[in-house]
């Protein structure tokens, strides 16, 4: 009986854990985003990035017409395929360059996307 109670309590606790995972199932760029030109990226899209080596990288969104950076993130990437989220809810609608830069400041990849 105690065992059953413990199992039930476990389920109860599990049910009460905050489940705020974002539903990212809608948008997924299964191929390397930098191999695609002009893709439309919606909020909480998943993009795939292939890296030649692991390390620190910076990825940024730069307005195509004003050349202003609106957002930039530093992340640690692994060699091979990496999946990143792109959040666009507060990014003004427009056309942007998505740019990947390595830790030495060298541009690794660049593509154009629409938000």
């Amino acid at each position, binding site marked *: 009986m105690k065992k059953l109670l413990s199992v039930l309590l476990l389920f109860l606790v599990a049910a009460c854990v905050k489940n705020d995972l974002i539903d990212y199932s809608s948008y997924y760029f299964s191929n390397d985003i930098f191999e695609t030109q002009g893709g439309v990226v919606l909020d909480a899209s998943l993009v795939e990035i292939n890296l030649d080596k692991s390390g620190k990288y910076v990825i940024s969104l730069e307005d195509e017409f004003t050349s202003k950076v609106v957002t930039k*993130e530093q992340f640690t990437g692994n060699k091979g395929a990496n999946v990143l989220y792109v959040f666009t809810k*507060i990014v003004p609608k427009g056309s942007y360059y998505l740019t990947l830069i390595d830790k030495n400041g060298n541009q690794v990849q660049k593509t154009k996307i629409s938000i």
Partner: protein
Amino acid sequence: MKKLLFLLLFPIFAFSQSITISVDYAGLIVEPVENEITPVTDLEIGDEFYIDITMDNSDNSERKATYADIWFTFKNDAFEYLGVINPLDGTNNWYTYQWPSIYQFNNSSTATVDDLYGQYYTDHTWSSVGDENSDHAPMQIRTQTAGPELTGTVARLKFKYKQVQNGFDFSESVFLRKASVRDNTTGYLFTDVKAFPNQTFDNAPASTTVTAQFKVLFPSTLDATLFSAGIYTPDSDNTWVQPTGAIYENLSSTGTLNVTQGFNITDDFAVITNWDGYVVDAENGDYTIPFSEQYDEIVTISDVVLAFNELANRGINMDETGNEFNYGIQYMNADVNGDGSFDDQDTYLMLAHVLDSDNSSLLGANPAMVMASKFYSKADWDAITISNYSQYPNGTTLMSFLDNKVANTQQFSFESAITWKGDVNLSHSTAPPAAVNTSAIAKSASLGVLASPQAARFAINPDLITISSGLVTELKDGKVYATVTLDPGTQEIAGLQYKLSYDNTKLTFDSINFETVNTSTNFGSNKQNYVKFGSFIKSGDEVLSESTKYTLIFTPKVQLTNTLGLIVISNTDAANKKGQQLNLEIK
């Protein structure tokens, strides 16, 4: 032979007798000058006038028109029917009837529109379409005499022009539809009854053809579509209300609004322009930007630096003015407490607003646009100078009064300048006319800088000196860090301000760390979906150098693995020690 010819032609003669019926303007019911008919083109809304129904018989030697049943329609939205006069003065039988305005006349499929006989006796119909769908009210006049012919004016109708919306379609206001005309003596029915020369009455009072457009001269730093406006007029209680038919809607992207509906050249009018802030976002859902957020971009640190400099740079005897300001409107905007003079109390209030100290705001407790906006006619705006600005009203308002009482004008175009309490550098104001402050220009030239640097506005002067900042976000130890750094180049930076927006559905703002010089006054405040922060050095030799760094810390509300797009810099502002506004780019 002659007899044969006559017999051949007789049918033509016999059937060539025609009746014409016409609708003709016949003057005002009460003419201002006796025996003079006011021209129809002079008629105006409210005028009472005659429309005559006239008949003519081309040959009454054998057959006379002694009976007529004439149907016409009139636009009862434009006309008030006041009655009809029988010109035959009781020597005939007389009948008139006005039908309700719910019918629509459908022309015969075989007769032409001006063939009144054909319309009468073939397949015309009346459809009951309801008052809303019927522009016309049908009316019938039936008259007959025992002897005298019905000729000339057979009915004199009395109408009054109603108040209608500008642009009302007055064409075919009166329209002859069908008629049956007989010779009662012989029983002959006239088969050639035409509407001629005037089947319709189409006059449009000149005032109803007036068009009026209003335009706010927005600078490029404001989005005109986030503002809405409408035309207003005072009612009998002196309360400003919208006239009938007037629109209230968002301004176009160029700041224009059609104010034709409800406009005239006799009443007082003003256009009220207010903040709307509604943004359509099909992807993420529509939302409204509060005015306070817009105002945070209007009054910024560069306004404060410029205002401080104007007060500080007053010459050896501290009695000079205009060493930093170039325009009279700058003094007006700098007088934020509205006491009629620009002084230290004003700069203190401006600084408190930018710093958000104790939730201090120039908007007061009511963060509405009316607390900050000012409108001036383009003529006044261009006339305001440093020497005469005190003669102009400086209170905040939403109203632009229209100079509309101009006769003989059909197309009105009103332009209004917009400016703001606290917008000392005119960054979000209508571009002022060319600077006339020669001392400031000379000083600028001697310094080797822009000709009118202090009022350098994005809209006025796209050639601002540019400096840069860096922004990078990172997810680290379960927190999101946004680091903002400064690259001042050769500039001596006295003021910096950033608006950093964040996705508040996924992040909660925790804190901000400042790494600046000791004499810097740093400020930062969370506004639910953005953080306003920056630094200001009021005096001394120190400046904000390349070591300046701001670190903002957020806690994720959801499980994150990276942060791209969750934090963006949406607005920046900077000023150097000279009070020049700088273009601060994010790299």
